[in-house]
């Protein structure tokens, strides 16, 4: 059956047909939909885990007990899951185990541009990389077979363009879903030194077998064309090469990225006059080819930065570019921003107005860094706001008023460990949990604080107040971020306190279907003095037209935050 699927849905279909029984993941763009689509199958167990480390360990446990299992994460999620990853390479699997990891060249929605292929090499785990949705489907399905045949987890690497592009996919039926018999195997699964020492040579032997497999497997293929130039490429870059150069060059298209073949590459190199590697991010294939002693070009021609396209390839090989239309208009940039009625805005206003130094975290609320709020001083990685604030306060010694902001999902992911450190090693840090009752930026996934599971069924709910109390925080208060005075009072009192504190800023995301918008507010033009105080909120619904504030009724959800700022009573609620 042929369907138009995004890469992530094709991966989920491949995993499903490949016999997956358990999937556990933490959401992260551009990987999220893999698990969302899997959650629609009722004959497998799917879940959102608190973080990627937990997710991979759940997949490990399910594999140990005999089930085919998987997890999906974004590239930086694999950093979190790296600890189990490296030792899983030693234990191997019982049921097949597939780890889907989605890189984000160009950082469409990420804080760095790291290349996950390094992890495959470092952990000695095989890695596949599809180039369209059909391959996403096929590689995901095959990954279980490779996992069980070679007794290893398998990494399935995607990039944003593959994960989020739709192409035609011919899908089939589910198979191999039986769960294997569990057997206790201490030497395989207890990785203490005596057993681990015995396993490392097994891993090295396995790599040799995988190299032999990569020489002959149908994940790698040669497409002969003109022989003046031979290109080695993989993933989306294969598509750009074919689009730009067609049959004028020969192509070695790699689908298995670790380990890389040797003989196949030598044979291909012998058939062409000039050998070039086209790969986004780091020169990993190129380094391998060079290690074989072959003359090759790669990063001397192509940048390690950002996403490529067909023009990237055309420019290097001096192919003709298309005649483009053009006009001279100074088009203002349009960055993403916090939505009208976003519950984070009121708290950010309170922080910004009072010039608090704020450690930020990863989520929609990273947008609080932008003008006019400019409320953040740092954003590093999931959870770093809390631990970073503790460190900042140790060095700052109370010179500045400081706080950190972290969302509900991120707090559970890895903020709670930082909070334990704040309490245990006692700084007077003020931790603000922006509890909007959902994982927002990745598109509304449930998490342990929402009271619902991945399927939307009622589930156990973390009591944030009780959790913070249990780790040793004595000052805990809950505020409504739609109430600016309440936010300011809490921020000023808690940042002045010499005890650690948690402020829970609680109001559900305005985009949730369960949240009903109130009627929009409007500006009484006679009362408006054009002071632009309301503009300091950075609300997309408010603008200035003819020196007076105007509120876009199609965007305004009646949060009334702007109304609280207006000194002239010019912003009015319509009849409610």
């Amino acid at each position, binding site marked *: 059956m042929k369907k138009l699927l995004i890469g992530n849905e094709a991966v989920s279909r491949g995993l499903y047909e490949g016999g997956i029984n358990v999937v556990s993941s933490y959401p992260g763009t551009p990987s999220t939909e893999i698990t969302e689509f899997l959650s629609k199958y009722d004959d497998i167990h799917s879940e959102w885990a608190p973080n990627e480390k937990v997710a991979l360990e759940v997949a490990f446990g399910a594999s140990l007990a005999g089930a085919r299992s998987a997890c999906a994460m974004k590239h930086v999620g694999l950093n979190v899951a790296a600890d189990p990853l490296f030792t899983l390479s030693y234990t191997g699997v019982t049921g097949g185990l597939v780890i889907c990891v989605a890189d984000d060249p160009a950082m469409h*929605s990420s804080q760095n541009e790291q290349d996950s292929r390094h992890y495959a090499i470092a952990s000695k785990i095989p890695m596949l990389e599809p180039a369209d949705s059909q391959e996403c489907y096929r590689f995901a399905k095959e990954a279980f077979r490779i996992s069980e045949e070679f007794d290893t987890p398998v990494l399935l690497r995607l990039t944003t363009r593959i994960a989020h592009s739709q192409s035609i996919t011919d899908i089939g039926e589910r198979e191999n879903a039986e769960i294997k018999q569990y057997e206790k195997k201490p030497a395989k699964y207890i990785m203490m030194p005596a057993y681990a020492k015995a396993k490392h040579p097994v891993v090295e032997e396995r790599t040799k077998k995988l190299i032999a497999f990569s020489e002959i497997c149908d994940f790698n293929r040669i497409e002969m064309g003109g022989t003046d130039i031979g290109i080695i490429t993989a993933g989306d870059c294969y598509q750009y090469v074919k689009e730009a150069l067609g049959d004028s060059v020969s192509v070695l298209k790699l689908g298995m990225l670790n380990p890389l073949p040797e003989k196949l590459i030598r044979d291909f190199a012998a058939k062409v006059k000039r050998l070039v590697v086209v790969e986004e991010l780091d020169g990993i294939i190129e380094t391998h080819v060079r290690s074989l002693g072959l003359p090759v070009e790669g990063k001397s021609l192509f940048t390690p930065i950002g996403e490529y396209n067909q023009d990237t390839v055309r420019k290097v090989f001096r192919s003709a570019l*298309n005649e*483009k239309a053009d*006009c001279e208009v100074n088009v*203002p*940039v349009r960055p993403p921003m916090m939505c009208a009625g976003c519950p984070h805005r009121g708290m950010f206003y309170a922080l910004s107005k009072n010039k608090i130094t704020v450690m930020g975290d990863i989520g929609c609320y990273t947008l609080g860094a932008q003008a006019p709020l400019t409320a953040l001083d740092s954003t590093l990685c999931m959870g770093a706001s809390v631990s970073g604030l503790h460190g900042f306060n140790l060095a700052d010694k109370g010179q500045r008023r400081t706080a950190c902001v972290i969302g509900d999902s991120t707090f559970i992911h890895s903020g709670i460990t930082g909070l334990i450190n704040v309490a245990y090693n006692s700084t007077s840090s003020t931790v603000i949990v922006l509890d909007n009752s959902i994982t927002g930026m990745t598109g509304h996934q449930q998490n342990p604080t929402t009271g619902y599971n991945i399927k939307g069924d009622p589930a156990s709910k973390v009591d944030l107040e009780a959790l913070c109390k249990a780790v040793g925080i004595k000052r805990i208060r809950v505020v409504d971020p739609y109430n600016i005075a309440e936010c300011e009072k809490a921020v000023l009192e808690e940042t002045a306190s010499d005890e650690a504190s948690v402020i829970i800023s609680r109001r559900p995301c305005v985009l949730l279907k369960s949240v009903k918008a109130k009627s929009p507010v409007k500006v009484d033009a006679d009362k408006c003095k054009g002071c632009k105080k309301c503009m300091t909120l950075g609300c997309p619904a408010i*603008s200035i037209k003819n020196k007076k504030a105007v509120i876009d009724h199609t965007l305004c959800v009646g949060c009334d935050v702007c109304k609280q700022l207006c000194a002239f009573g010019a912003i009015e609620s319509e009849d409610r």
Partner: protein
Amino acid sequence: MKTTNLMIVGVGGQGTLLASKLLGKLLVSEGYDVKVSEVHGMSQRGGSVVTYVRFGEKVYSPVITEGEADYIVSFEKIEAARYLSCLSNKGKIIVNNQEIDPMPVITGAAVYPTDVLEKVKESGVFVDEMNALDLAESAGSAKAVNIVLMGRLARYLGIGREKWVKAIEETVPAKTKEMNLKAFELGYNYEM
């Protein structure tokens, strides 16, 4: 057969994703090889958004680069200018003349260029301008801007109107079907 390249551009939240879903469904049913590419996540929050739709006998790249697009459907006025360099100098652009201020305009750091469509027209490309928001509201919902514009696009792509109607019926929620079909007709029949 040459690949046809089409871009849908606009502002996050304007319904460009549904438009691309509709187009994808329609083009697959027509028997084309199709690739549709868009970026989810951060860029959805009121940012500038772009969807690439490519169809033909065999499509490789999922993205469209400078001068490659045959058509651009722009949901907002300045977004038409932002992506104009992707349009072939023989290309056509359908533009909703709605103005949505980006944050730098809201904060006063930049101004919204007033003569943007005149400049786009001066570039020599064919511009089909309409007030899709008004038409959508008269169909019953401001949210139907996307279907109004798809109605307009239907005049150019040479795919039977009844096939568009069928694809709309299969794509939109049942309770908005009638409203969306009306929006499609308003876009299709609008006189420049």
